[in-house]
């Protein structure tokens, strides 16, 4: 059995011993990644559920908080993330075509955009710190009617964007790993599964932000 595995491995790069062939392995990896993303949907879903409950309970307080969100930075970050999804797709495309330099270039670009997002996020968090909008003992709110309710919104804001930011940081780590792997010629047009899978993850994290931005930043701006 060991012998046949080695011969197979020559023809099918990246094939692990317990799979019959590359097609089966790719099926498994793809399904595994999608199931993982389902667990991520449920993970964020708990917070979106809590958000929905409290927004129904305190619609006016929640609307008032969005005037203290930095919509400009939020909008720029939305654009940055959408563009990073585009560069991620181009990285996967380059991997399909086996273009090593293009893979590295697009992955580096995606990584840079991710870092831009995180930097801007840091600027926003710092503003919240200065404005005493961090939930906890030092929390202050300008509208005395809504102090407690607004604190709940800011709690959810930090929990949701914080979890999103942690996922971005993990994503940046994964992108770095991919760049190292690509520079060591690990990928070819026959096997580039990690690029594709981490691409799926990156898109998922972007989509979460697409929901977070209007829910947290824009709700009060229609009034």
């Amino acid at each position, binding site marked *: 059995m060991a012998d046949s595995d080695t011969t197979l491995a020559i023809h099918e790069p990246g094939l692990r011993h317990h799979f019959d062939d590359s097609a089966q392995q790719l099926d498994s990896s793809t399904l595994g990644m999608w*199931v993982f993303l*389902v667990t991520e949907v449920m*993970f964020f879903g708990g*917070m979106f559920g*809590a958000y929905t409950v409290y927004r129904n309970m305190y619609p006016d307080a929640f609307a008032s908080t969005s005037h203290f969100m930095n919509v400009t930075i939020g909008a720029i970050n939305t654009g940055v993330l959408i563009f990073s999804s585009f560069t991620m797709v181009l990285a996967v495309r380059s991997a399909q075509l086996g273009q090593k330099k293009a893979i590295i270039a697009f992955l580096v670009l995606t990584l840079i955009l991710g870092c831009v997002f995180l930097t801007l996020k840091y600027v926003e968090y710092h503003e919240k710190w200065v404005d005493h909008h961090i939930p906890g003992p030092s929390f202050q709110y300008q509208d005395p009617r809504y102090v407690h309710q607004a604190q*709940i919104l800011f*709690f959810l804001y930090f929990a949701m964007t914080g979890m999103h930011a942690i996922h971005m940081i993990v994503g940046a780590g994964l992108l770095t790993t991919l760049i190292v792997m690509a520079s060591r010629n690990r990928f070819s047009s026959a096997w580039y599964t990690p690029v594709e899978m981490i691409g799926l993850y990156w898109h998922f994290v972007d989509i979460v932000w697409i929901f977070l931005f209007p829910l947290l930043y824009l709700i009060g701006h229609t009034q």
Partner: protein
Amino acid sequence: MSTTLPFAQTETRPNYLNVDYGWKSWLFTTDHKRIALLYLFSITAFFFVGGAFAVGMRLNLLTPEGLFAHDTYNKLFTMHGIIMVFFFLVPSIPATLGNFLVPIMIGARDLAFPRINLLSWYLYIIGGVIALTAVVQGGVDTGWTFYAPFSSTYSNTHVILTAIGVFVSGFSSILTGLNFIVTIHTMRAPGMTWNRLPLFVWGHYATSLIQVLGTPVIAITLVLLGLERILHAGIFDPAVGGDPVLFQHLFWFYSHPAVYIMILPGMAVISEIVTCFSRKGIFGYTFVAISSIAIAVLGFLVWGHHLFVAGQSMYASMVFSFLSFLVAIPSAIKVFNWTATMYKGSVSYETPMLYVFGFIGLFTIGGLTGLFLATMAIDVHVTDTYFVIAHFHYVMVGGMVMAYLGGIHFWFPKISGRMYPEGWAKFAALVVFVGFNLTFFPQFILGYQGMPRRYAHYPPEFQVLNVMSTAGASILAVGYLIPMIYLAWAWRKGPKAPQNPWNAKGLEWEQSPTPPPTFNFEHQPVVTEPAYNYSGEEQEVKLG
């Protein structure tokens, strides 16, 4: 014997146990069978830790005035619940028997992601060590349900540390479920179609769906709880506009389906054993298979029956009550079909089958009393009484632990390559059955008479039933210790097992050597018949 003579190759065929003996070959293994054994030993350890807390509780309840201070008793029942639920029941069958058998039963060489499988064991151990650290540092007293705002604001115990332990071990559960789903979808052997899958695999597929969909929600709930405990922002605190019922909704959105994580694998084991020792195909294969999926789906729609007295809207409660009754249908289908499988089968009484009888009877009682609790008016009367305790212990201990022990005995020859002593095993099964009923049946009566759960003291008129319960618990403890002793003995000294000691059907018995080699099969298995094809000569012998 053979292990001491490495060159006696006529006797020793290479298998997953003798392929390597170094500690590295265990701690860094990616073989699903070895990981199953790592889980088996660690889960057994946690079972006895959780059991030790139960011993403390039963000792305390021996007398109305109690043995321990209230705070100590609160910690005892909390740690008993947390250890038993998160570190024994949830991983029990899936991570041990499931890990060992799912790949072999579908004719695969390993799970789809062997390294993730090993990672899941490490996460389990890390989570367990964190939780045990919290125990050593003084424990936690919130109840295993972590209800806010007590847990987030008022408790002075190690809530966050325990929550981190549960959080980490949750990812072990998610990864096991993910691995099973992918493996069952993509790694089946030629001829192993979905309607030929053993019911063990169907049960684990349904379990995995719940693990994957439910566990992330408890994870984020515990994160929010921990943040609230640090920041006191009030998200679950009604004093500052938070909603404690929201915590209960989020908690039970996982923890009710988790009840089915704990029972579906037990049902999966029972389906395998009952056909083997009835020498008859399962009655209504499709119904038993689909009922597992139905339980998994319906299980997500009933969490609100834990909130009947928590201030939930009456109309929501009515819907949740109705949906809870619906879960009884697929559960009953299983019980009826197991019984129908035995009907006119040639039933024999080996130890695993004794556990099946125990399971069917006790699960039926546990399930039917669940319907009492789904009825809103009765639930108001028995909420937070020993009736609830007795109900879920009939399902979890009478059901799941019976199935676990039955499964361990049934597949012990496959796992260890040795036979266990049948006489001792039957005796232990009987002791477990007697001890269990003596422990928990009095609790139904206590609960109906109004004894509340989670109280360290009780009025003197409840003492007789409590003494009976404590006496039963000591018998039950003996019943759990006996198998530990003879199984450990049999692992070294038991007679060698043939490949298929029960003449059972299924790839793991018919086509995989005992114990299996590292890649499970010597030749690519091919499936040419439906599951449990016991008909033919067996049926003729029987029907005469």
